């Protein structure tokens, strides 16, 4: 597997996917508010910290929906097949991101 975006590195693609995924569920103002509240408007922290912050704000179920939207957006940007990641049920956001990042590097 390899990243299909030739102009973006992974952190940028991840950042765009976070915006895109949050936008889709929370709307532009909701997404901007979440990132502003997390103080992540310019740089995104590691997925584990992001997960913890989302969990504190929205709780388990809503966090799962938001993270799934982010992963879907990321996969779309990378032009991957979503079936390669099993995210339909509960999944580990941090581990999934790590898996994607490693695959992109490879």
């Amino acid at each position, binding site marked *: 597997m390899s990243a299909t975006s030739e102009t973006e590195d992974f952190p940028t693609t991840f950042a765009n996917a976070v915006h895109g995924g949050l936008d889709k569920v929370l709307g*532009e103002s909701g997404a901007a508010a*979440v990132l502003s509240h997390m103080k992540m408007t310019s740089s995104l922290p590691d997925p584990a910290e992001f997960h913890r912050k989302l969990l504190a704000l929205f709780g388990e179920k809503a966090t799962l929906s938001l993270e799934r939207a982010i992963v879907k957006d990321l996969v779309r940007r990378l032009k991957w097949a979503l079936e390669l990641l099993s995210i339909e049920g509960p999944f580990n956001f941090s581990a999934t991101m790590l898996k994607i990042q490693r695959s992109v590097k490879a």
Partner: protein
Amino acid sequence: MTTRRSPGLRPLTQVNRRRSTAGSGAEDLAETRIATVLGLKQFTQRPVRTLLIKGLAGTGKTIVALEILKAAGKGKGAYISSRVPKELLEEHIPAMKETLDNQDFLDIRLEDATSVLDFVMQLTEPKKVRTIVFDSWDGLAKELDQKERLRAEKTLMALANNSGAQLIFVSEEPGATTIDYLVDGILELLRVEEQDRAVREFIIHKLRGTKIPQHKYLFTLLEGKFTFFGPYAIPDYSKIGKFAQRPDIDGSYSFGSGALDRLFGGMIPGSTLAIEYDENVPYSALRTIELPPIINFLSMGRSAILLPLPGANDERTNSILTRVLGESAVADRLRILNVVRTSDLQTTSLPKSATPNEIHELVTRETTRLREKSKDRSVLLVKSVSALENLFASDLDSLLEVTSQEIITLAQSHDAHILFLPKDSPIRSRILSMSSSYAKLFVRDGTVLMFGVKPHTGVYALQHLEDPTSPSLTQLV
């Protein structure tokens, strides 16, 4: 009679009960607070965490929202205003100054949706804030397109769900919007006209997890506080207390009830007060107008005659009066003439087919007899026209003639006269034209309402909050 305002009226018990429970312990769960303020706590089975309060300008939305905010407890609520600054709001609703001072106030008139949502996250993340009021939500939502608005609303719902806070959205949008489908409850406030007077009503359109026993309720904003009226409840006569005698008011007889005295200013000697009532007004509500003047007359050493309403239980009336006044006053100076009961006609030596004139003569004889026993020779005559109409249905002209004669004779005396008149009485307009005062009782949304036509007064809700024999009247403003 003159109309007097009612400065001494106290807020109803619902308000007091709520005060005592808000802000502490199990009574203070988020899911019960809204239902408690609306008087529906006992029916709540599932959380009511988000509420939309709709209504046109001036219907009382902000006051209702602030009552719910107050129930959150000091320092545990936030008011997000997109319309007015705090100072102006406190000026408009002085009774809520303390509530506003006790809670966070966020003025978002110049803020965008992102900043507002960030504010909400700051409030909800520590999970300390229990209630957040958006007044108004439209002010902000109208700046967003339909899809963006729905997503912002879903964001708020998710934040509320995770933090346990309840969100109250105030809206002036009359139609259904996206938020109608998301919230747990929808309350609509209205100002409606009833008998040429404006009354306030709220409609519960939706309250998830709650069996709503009644969808419409009347409420008042008296003294800047939201007080709703549940359906009329029959008084508990086992709680009859000591009667406090009320002296004459500037030459007028007291009604024996502070609330009635404030409304009508007392009964001028020689006057006739007509009380018109709808067929759905409960008898106990009429009795609460009927008994206090009789009790007060008797307690002042005067005499009274009662021609009871059809269906009245004389033994019950006697028992209530005896408990309040003692046996001798009732036996000596009160005469209950139940004209539709054969036994009474027999004891007064009247034939079963007595004419209106014979009844009139009986009343006159009794008045003369009781006048001798009255401390100042005055007698109160409380009479049900309905009972007489039932008895003399085929001879209403004679009844009207006799009643007119009684009113005219009485006007020359120092007696007082109260007539209970059904709304559909065929002789209603003739009697009303002869009456010096005229009040109406009717029922709306289960609440018994009363107002004066002559003299003109506001509308009052009739309840029994203290003494079961006396009415509590709360003005609907």
